[in-house]
């Protein structure tokens, strides 16, 4: 921000909040990366680690909220300061959700470990996770720099994730139709894919929040649409797999 407060401790309070967000972001990123690695390598120990880390984000979110509330009460923030604090609360909630999604993926590792995973699926999931993590990482960079242009760019780039998710969705359906014994593991994997895809959405939400914090207005134009798997029907998949 361009100027500093006359009351310098107010600056410290705002800095504390944004530092905690960056920390939460780092933890969430790590959890997502680990959960996906645990999934494709069927590493139960790593999955357990991810599950146990979720509490870090839960606590961090609570602490950020508490500090934000106290700061609002004490400083009665106006304009950009008010938007900053409200945005911080929102972003903390988004990151906490990202952690939950990582944890949920990790939990499913235990359920699918015995069935193994086709190479192709694993690659698809890894690719999906890679893109989601790039989104997350970039949005955290944008949080640090408050670049309005970059915040907008991230928001406009959710399409690719959605496309890969939809193709994974088709593939999983194909496996399920080939052999009913695949239904249980594939259903878990489907949830995992959805979890990862949702992380992209959270990154987009964060980008929009940062845009609002910086400008005081919502980004213009329609948000890229959600995944198109809602229109995939079994017949399509059957056709495609023939």
């Amino acid at each position: 921000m361009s100027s500093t407060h006359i009351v310098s401790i107010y600056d410290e309070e705002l800095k504390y909040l944004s530092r905690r967000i960056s920390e939460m972001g780092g933890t969430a990123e790590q959890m997502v990366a680990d959960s996906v690695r645990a999934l494709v390598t069927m590493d139960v120990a790593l999955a357990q680690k991810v599950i146990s880390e979720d509490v870090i984000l839960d606590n961090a979110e609570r602490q950020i909220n508490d500090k934000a509330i106290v700061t609002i009460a004490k400083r009665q923030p106006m304009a950009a300061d008010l938007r900053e604090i409200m945005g911080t609360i929102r972003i903390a909630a988004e990151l906490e959700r990202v952690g939950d999604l990582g944890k949920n993926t990790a939990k499913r590792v235990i359920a699918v470990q015995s069935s193994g995973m086709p190479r192709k699926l694993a690659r698809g999931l890894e690719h999906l996770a890679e893109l989601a993590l790039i989104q997350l990482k970039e949005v955290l960079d944008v949080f640090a720099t408050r670049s309005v242009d970059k915040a907008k760019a991230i928001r406009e780039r959710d399409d690719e994730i959605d496309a890969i998710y939809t193709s994974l969705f088709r593939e999983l359906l194909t496996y399920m139709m080939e052999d009913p014994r695949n239904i249980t593991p594939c259903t878990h994997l489907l949830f995992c894919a959805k979890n990862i895809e949702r992380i992209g959405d959270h990154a987009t939400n964060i980008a929009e929040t940062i845009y609002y914090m910086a400008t005081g207005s919502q980004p213009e134009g329609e948000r890229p649409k959600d995944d198109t798997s809602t229109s995939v029907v079994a017949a399509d998949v059957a056709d495609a797999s023939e």
Partner: protein
Amino acid sequence: MNMMSEAAVEKALDKKMNDISYKMIGKDVSVYYGDKRALYDVNLNVRENTVTALIGPSGCGKSTFLRTLNRMNDTIDGCRVTGRITLDTDDIYDQNIDVVELRARVGMVFQKPNPFPKSIYENVAYGPRIHGLAKSKADMDAIVEKSLQKAGLWNEVKDRLQEGGTGLSGGQQQRLCIARAVAVSPEVILMDEPCSALDPIATAKVEELIHELRANFTIVIVTHSMQQAARVSQRTAMFHLGNLVEENDTDKMFTNPDDQRTQDYIMGRFG
């Protein structure tokens, strides 16, 4: 009697709903104290039945501008006002304007409660009496009661109307001054930091009062509390070094102001 046709009434109501109607219009208002210029070509319109807050750092000219609206500056030696200010359609600096009558139409409440050293009753009755607003004792009693009611003070003082106004607490005195201002049925009420000497409860009462007065009066308030400006006003004007730098809807002003100087000021930042 001047009967309006139905269509005309509807049109008038429509205008009230859709158009902004300005109670006072200030055009190129400049003020000099001797050689020192305190305001620079201020163009600020005051909307009817609206609370307009004037904010800005100390010495920026808020009180000076406020005083131009009822010619209080006339009482200051060496003070000169240029530009044009109208109340409805009347140019208030016109030679033919009766200043006493103007100040009955545009009343004022000051920072420090300043009741006369007289009874509570007399404090309120004084204005209506000199303006001949009451025909009888009963009339006057009614005006006094109504004004004290409006100022939210009636219940606290109704049993001791003959006691001195200066014997009230600071918050009560300020509400007494508001009752005094209201008693002459002004069209506009100017308030210069009316709550600066009051505790939070008395402040809340005055703010509640401002909210209620808005239905019948047009209010311009100078305040150093950003939160107060945000709470009580619908429009906010920001002054800086004698210039009006921004005037906006209050909600916009305190969430996303346009001017950098406004931002720095309301957020308590260095410019």
